[in-house]
């Protein structure tokens, strides 16, 4: 009897011991290995971006030295992550955040003061992070600067009721760096009249680079008993329209009454997860690929229907080239 008990105890210990996690030492080598392994097992766009992570790891590992400073290690690790060309991938320490924010190198294509002064005349209304106004020619304008700003359904009713009589609506999400995807659903649901395919999402099921689940198609429903706007809409976007904003633009672009004007968005179609290294640095990375309604992953951005930049000459005379084009498109659709 006691032999069986001993055997059962050993078996239980074996079962639990089989699944111990690796513990990396808190030194340059250990932290580097932890970072490389976390990315190797969780990052979702290696093949999409044609990145040979083994080669990248070998190249940067060769630069490790046992006496390197914390700053030197941070820079080395940050440079390695930049090889992924991913705005969602950051190494976060108490003193710095490594980043690949390529949109900073493109024309900004947005000037808040220019719009507020010459189009909204500093007389705009604002609620739930949305700035709104009726422009000349009876065109509605609403700017949503950040998808982290919670949108109340009641607030949105006020905004869209106020703009309901307008012949067209401009939604300005230029330089909107993203936020919560639930706010994307809240906003898009006001511009659809029926159940609409919003895209698909998948996730990794294992540690292999291509261990993805079958993409799950998801749909948005029109919000019941709330105000909707189904007249022509122009969405203004630029390279700073990133992450959740990129997702918003991709979905809106698929709607028949919507025209996307401006520049290609900044992309960022992987839902980011976070992990950490033994020294307490955190690493954020793209984890769950999200495709638009067309089935395409827009990691490098969503192209506009009409490409246009903000011209300096127009700015000098108080005009927003992109906003003017949006008004022109909406007037033409009347």
């Amino acid at each position: 009897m006691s032999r069986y008990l001993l055997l059962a105890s050993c078996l239980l210990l074996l079962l639990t011991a089989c699944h111990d996690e690796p513990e990396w030492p808190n030194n340059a080598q250990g932290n580097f290995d932890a970072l490389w392994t976390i990315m190797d097992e969780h990052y979702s766009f290696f093949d999409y971006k044609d990145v040979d992570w083994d080669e990248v790891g070998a190249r940067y590992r060769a630069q490790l030295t046992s006496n390197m400073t914390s700053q030197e290690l941070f820079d080395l690790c940050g440079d390695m992550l930049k090889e992924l060309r991913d705005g969602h991938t950051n190494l976060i320490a108490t003193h710095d955040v490594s980043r690949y924010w390529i949109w900073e190198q493109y024309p900004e294509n947005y000037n808040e003061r220019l719009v507020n002064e010459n189009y909204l005349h500093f007389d705009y209304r604002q609620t739930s992070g949305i700035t709104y106004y009726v422009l000349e020619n009876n065109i509605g304008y609403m700017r949503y600067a950040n998808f982290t700003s919670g949108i109340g359904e009641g607030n949105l009713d006020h905004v869209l009721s106020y703009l309901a009589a307008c012949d067209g609506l401009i939604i300005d999400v230029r330089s909107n760096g993203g936020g919560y995807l639930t706010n994307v659903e809240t906003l898009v649901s006001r511009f659809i009249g029926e159940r609409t395919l919003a895209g698909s999402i998948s996730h990794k099921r294992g540690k292999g680079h291509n261990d993805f689940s079958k993409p799950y198609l998801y749909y948005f429903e029109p919000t019941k008993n709330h105000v909707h706007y189904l007249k022509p809409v122009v969405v203004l976007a630029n390279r700073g329209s990133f992450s959740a904003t990129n997702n918003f633009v991709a979905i809106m672009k698929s709607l028949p009454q919507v025209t996307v004007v401006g520049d290609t968005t900044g992309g960022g179609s992987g839902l980011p997860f976070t992990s950490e290294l033994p020294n307490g640095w955190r690493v954020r990375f793209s984890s769950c690929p999200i495709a638009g309604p067309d089935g395409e992953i827009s990691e490098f951005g969503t192209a506009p229907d009409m490409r246009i930049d903000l011209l300096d000459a127009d700015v000098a005379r108080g005009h927003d080239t992109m906003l003017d084009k949006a008004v022109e498109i909406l007037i033409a659709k009347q």
Partner: protein
Amino acid sequence: MTIRLRHRVLAAILGCALWNTAAATDSTEVVRPVLSMFMFDVGRAHVLDTYLTPITYRGVGVRLGYEHSQVTKFAPSAWLRQLAVDIEYNPARNAAKNNTMHDATLQARFGMMRRWEGLFHPNLQLMVGPMTQLRGGGIYNGANSNNVVSVKAHWAVGAQGMAIWKTHWGAKPLSFRYNAALPIVGVFFSPEYDESYYEIYLGNHKHLAHCGWWGNRFDLTQSLCADLRLGGTILRIGYRNRLERSWVNHLNTHITTHSFVIGIGGEFFTRGPHYNDKAPVKSVY
């Protein structure tokens, strides 16, 4: 003897025959006192959840527990039923001391145990029997982005046992008890490897429920306590250990707690108008 009392005695005799136990067969009323214990634990907690981080967090955790034990109606000298409800909170820090994870659990366990008194020694009482356990909670890591929380939920059936050694400390009754609960099979929740809760929110509920067995989940709660009776009050001190492991979808969860237990409680029973005040009442716990 009233008709009602005759029925009680008859029921007691039938119960004895059915369960083949040495139940009370004389005219002694079978009272079934309730042992109620309230406990507070404090101790070390180790928390690892690879959905959130590959780093093990450590900290000081606390628990509030309640235990309700009573012999059964059908075979009072042979079977005991026990209900235990716990709420546990383990804030734990990483080794770099720059982040805290919060592990919170609410658990209810109900079981019945067959009792053997004086089987190997007059002072020893052994109990073993089936139990069912429902546990829910989660681990929250506020520094993360879309993997900010790991929800925990499981239901299982298994075994629990207790060994009680009764002695005295001076004139005060003192008992030492070892108690263990071991789920064997059940159902538990886990997202897939890198599945986001946003995807679950969108409606993808596939592969979230898992059949739990010792091949993917091991869970043991055990305690060793000393109960000292001071009149109608029982004081408890002891040690409690919870070991929880799961490994599914390439995700590992390890939660270990080692706690110091203090508790207070007592035995309570309700006496109806037909009970004889002179009847002896003997504790079975």
